C-alpha cells in the first residue's frame, strides 16, 4: 500500500467517526434539514467533476464530464437553497401571524 493510500484511508475512517459523532446529537425536529444539508455536502463531487472536465479531450469524456458537472452543480445549488428555505421557517414565535378572529 502506498503512503498516499494509507493516509487517504486514515482520513476516510476519521471522517466517518466525526460524522457519527456530529450527527448523533441532532434532534429529530431537524432531521429533514439535516438530511438535506448533508445531501448538499456530497455535492462536493462538483470539485471532482470539474477536475475531470478540465482534462477531458475525447468527445465521450467531454460529454460525460459535462453531465457530471451539471449533475453535481444541481446537487450543490439546489441542496443548499432548499435547506436554507426549510431552516428559515423554524422560528421560536410565528413572526406576524395575528389571531384576532379567534375570540368567540
Amino acid at each position, binding site marked *: 500500500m502506498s503512503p498516499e493510500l494509507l493516509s487517504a484511508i486514515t482520513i476516510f475512517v476519521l471522517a466517518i467517526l466525526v460524522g457519527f459523532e456530529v450527527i448523533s446529537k441532532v434532534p429529530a425536529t431537524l432531521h429533514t434539514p439535516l438530511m438535506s444539508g448533508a*445531501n448538499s455536502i456530497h455535492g462536493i463531487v462538483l470539485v471532482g467533476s470539474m477536475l475531470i472536465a478540465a482534462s477531458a479531450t475525447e468527445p465521450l469524456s467531454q460529454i460525460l464530464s459535462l453531465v457530471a458537472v451539471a449533475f453535481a452543480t444541481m446537487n450543490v445549488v439546489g441542496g443548499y437553497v432548499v435547506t436554507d428555505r426549510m431552516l428559515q421557517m423554524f422560528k421560536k414565535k410565528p413572526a406576524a401571524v395575528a389571531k384576532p378572529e379567534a375570540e368567540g
Partner: protein
Amino acid sequence: MNAQTLDTIVRLIYLLAAAGFVFGLHQMNSPATARNGNLLSAGGMALAVIATVLLLASGSGGVSSTAWLIIGLGILIGGGLGLYTARTVKMTAMPQLVSLFNAVGGGAAALIAIDDYIRLSSGGDVSELRSLQFTIPTVLDVIIGCVTFTGSLVASGKLQGLIPGKPIVVPGGRIITFGVAAVAAIGALYLFAGNVSVPVLFLIIAAGLIFGITMVLPIGGADMPVVISLLNSFTGTAVAMAGFVIGSNVLIIAGALVGASGAILTKLMANAMNRSVLNIIAGGFGGGEGTVGETARGSGGSVREVSADDVAIQLAYASKVIVVPGYGLAVAQAQHQVRELAELLESRGVVVEYAIHPVAGRMPGHMNVLLAEASVPYPQLKEMDEINPEFPRADVALVVGANDVTNPAARSNPGSPIYGMPILDVDQAKSVVVIKRSMGRGYAGIDNELYTNPKTGMLFADAKEGLASLVAAVKAV
C-alpha cells in the same frame, strides 16, 4: 506564484472547506443555529469550488477553452435547474426533491469513476488499472453511484406519485435483483483480478442501474423515510470512493461525513419503526397509502363516533391539548388547518403541544418541516421521549392521520407485529379524539385497540376537512 505554492494553498483551502462542513453539520444541533450552519457549509463549498477554479486557471495543467466551456455550461445548466426547483418546490414535495438531488449527486460520483476508467484504459499505460488500490474504489464508486442514481429516481417518482406508492412486486423481481447483483459481483471480481475491460465496466454499470430500480420498486411509500436516508448515505460513500479514485481528500472527507450521518439516520428511522434496515429493503408489509380504503369496522369492540361540535366543546374547555400529527396529515397537506386550530385554542388559553413521532411524515423529520412551514413555533414541537410523560396531564389528545405509532399493542401485546415499536402514549390522555377517514388499518395492517378504547372518540373525515370543521365549530363555541 509557482505551481507548488498554489497547490499547497489550494489544499489548505480544501481543508478549510472540510472544516466548514463539519462545523456546519454541528450547528444543525439546534434550530437556533441551524441556518447559520447551513450557510457555513455552503461557504465551505463555495471556497472549494473557487479554489478548484484557481488551480485550473493557474495553467499548470493547460486547461483548454473547450474544457472551460464544458465547466461553465455544466455549472450554468445544473445551477439553473437546481436554483429553480429549490425555490419553487412546495414543502410537502420536499422529500422527492431531496431525493432527486441525491440521485444526481450519486450519478455525478459514478460518472467520475467511469470517465476516469475509460480514459486510462484508452491511454497506452494500463498498469494502474490492474492494481487493487485503483480497481476497488472505482468499482465501488460505479456500483454504489449507479444504484443510488436509479434508486433515488424511483424513490422520488414514488413520492411524487408518478410511480404508485404501494410496493410494486414484479413477477420474478427477486430473481432479477439477485441476478444483477451476481453480475455486478462477478464483473467486480474480474476487474479486481487484474483484467482491464471497458465492456465489463459497462456490464457493472448496467447491473447497478437495474439493481437500483428493482431494489426500491418493492418498497412501500411509508418506508420512504428509511430508504431516502439510506440512499443519501450511499451517495456519500460513492463520493468518498470517487475521492479515492481521483486522489482528492476533500471528496473523501465530505463523502465519509455524509455516509456516516446517513447511516445513523437510517438506523434511527428503522429503530423508530421497530424493523431492521434489511427487512425494509426486502419489502416487508404491503400497503403504504393503498390500505386506506379498506374497512374493518366493528372488529374487536365497538367504536364511539363523535361529531365536530362535540369535539370542539371538548377542545375549547380543555386546559391542555396534545396534537398527534401523522402520515395522513402529510398526505392531506393539512398542516395549515392544524396550526389554525391550535392558534384558535391558544387564544382561549388552552396549552397546545405537538407530539412528533420520529417517522411521522414522508422523510425523517418531515412533519417538523411541514408544521414549521405553517408557522408553528418549534418549541411546541415535542419529540416522543419528551412528550410521552405529558400525555397523562393532557385533557385531549387529538390524533390526526396517525395510526400505528399510537397503537398500545406495541407496548402490551407481545403477539402483535409491531410489539416493541416505540409509540406515543396517546391512550394515557384523559380523552382521545382521532380524525381518520375510515376504520381502515394502518401501514402495518393491524387493528388499533386505541379506537375501541371507551375514552376515544372517532371523527370520521379527511384530515383537512376534519380540522376545518373543527376550526369552524370551535369558533362557534
